[in-house]
């Protein structure tokens, strides 16, 4: 019996599944950020015309077909139009060739620099947000399914440590609010579970579209902690941990948030 149990545990590890008790929020209690919105914002998000994030999705569709760089290639030169369905749900992901962890933004820029001979798009630029949103939109409704096995495991562990690290003048970790206090009020706002499934998202506070990393920076600023530069490794690892934490939640890009 004991041996069988070990074999099962080994099988679970091999499949990249972490034991259930590691999850602070069990799968059955996962709630997307949209569950913590008022009905007006939720309606705005679900209205595919009025959702302001769709302006970026449309722009992304144009960019997808626009040739760029020395080789005069567009994304559409290699990728078929609807071929990106499901892709966003699997990111952040290990790139097999380089063994590095990429989020969707990083993957787009890797394709631009290595395959198109184009300049990388600046993080948080309108163009990068637009392309990311266009690609992620194609996974609308699909469950987040990032893998944490193999080379991703070390990134996952670093990400988990980053999530639980106390930071800043308020000496808080992500877990203090988003695991322990979600659903309660922080001044006028309801604390969400902190899931990444709607990004890039249109935030009312920003009055524009922003990436998941911009949202992470906003949280760090809120607890008066140091904000890291865009695209830094710690953010990437944290994004992977967040994706695992939100495993099964449907993609909502472009989300509308407060």
């Amino acid at each position, binding site marked *: 019996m004991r041996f069988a149990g070990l074999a099962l545990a080994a099988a679970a590890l091999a499949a990249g599944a972490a034991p259930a008790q590691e999850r602070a929020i069990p799968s059955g209690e996962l709630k997307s950020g949209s569950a913590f919105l008022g009905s007006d914002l939720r309606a705005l998000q679900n209205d595919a*015309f*009025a959702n*302001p994030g*769709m*302006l970026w999705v*449309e*722009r992304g569709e144009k960019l997808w077909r626009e040739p760029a760089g020395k080789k005069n290639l567009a994304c559409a030169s290699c990728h078929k139009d609807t071929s990106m369905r499901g892709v966003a749900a699997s990111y952040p992901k290990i790139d097999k060739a380089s063994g590095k962890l990429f989020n969707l933004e990083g993957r787009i820029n890797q394709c631009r620099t290595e395959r198109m001979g184009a300049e990388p798009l600046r993080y948080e630029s309108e163009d990068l947000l637009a392309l990311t949103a266009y690609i992620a939109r194609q996974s609308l409704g699909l469950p987040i399914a990032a893998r944490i096995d193999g080379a991703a495991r070390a990134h996952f562990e670093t990400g988990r440590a980053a999530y639980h690290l106390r930071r800043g003048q308020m000496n808080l970790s992500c877990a203090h609010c988003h695991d322990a206090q979600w659903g309660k009020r922080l001044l006028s706002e309801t604390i969400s579970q902190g899931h990444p499934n709607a990004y890039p998202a249109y935030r*009312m506070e920003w*009055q*524009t579209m922003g990436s998941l990393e911009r949202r992470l920076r906003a949280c760090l600023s809120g607890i008066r902690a140091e904000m890291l530069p865009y695209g830094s490794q710690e953010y990437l690892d944290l994004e992977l941990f967040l994706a695992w934490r939100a495993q099964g939640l449907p993609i909502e890009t472009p989300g509308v948030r407060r």
Partner: protein
Amino acid sequence: MAARIQIPREAKRGDVIEVRILIQHPMETGYRHDDVGHLIKRNVINALSCRYDGVEVFRADLSSGISANPYVQFYTVAEASGDLEFTWIDDEGERGSERQAIVVRG
């Protein structure tokens, strides 16, 4: 300035149709400061108008109280086949326009 318009492609004469427009614009309020403390000049879309088959059916004077990327929705009566043409202008004098055709039967 990108914009999206949504109207029915077809309607019966006399139908009340819903017209929706979403315009990408920062709607800079004129009350914000930049990173070095300088006031950012106000720049909002101050006038938006819609002509249906050449006749103005809707006009709005917008101001700094309207959020970025303004969304406007109104209703009009389908009278004849033709274009709904939106035009707008912001404080810096930049103009935008977008049009879409509707086919009216009966």
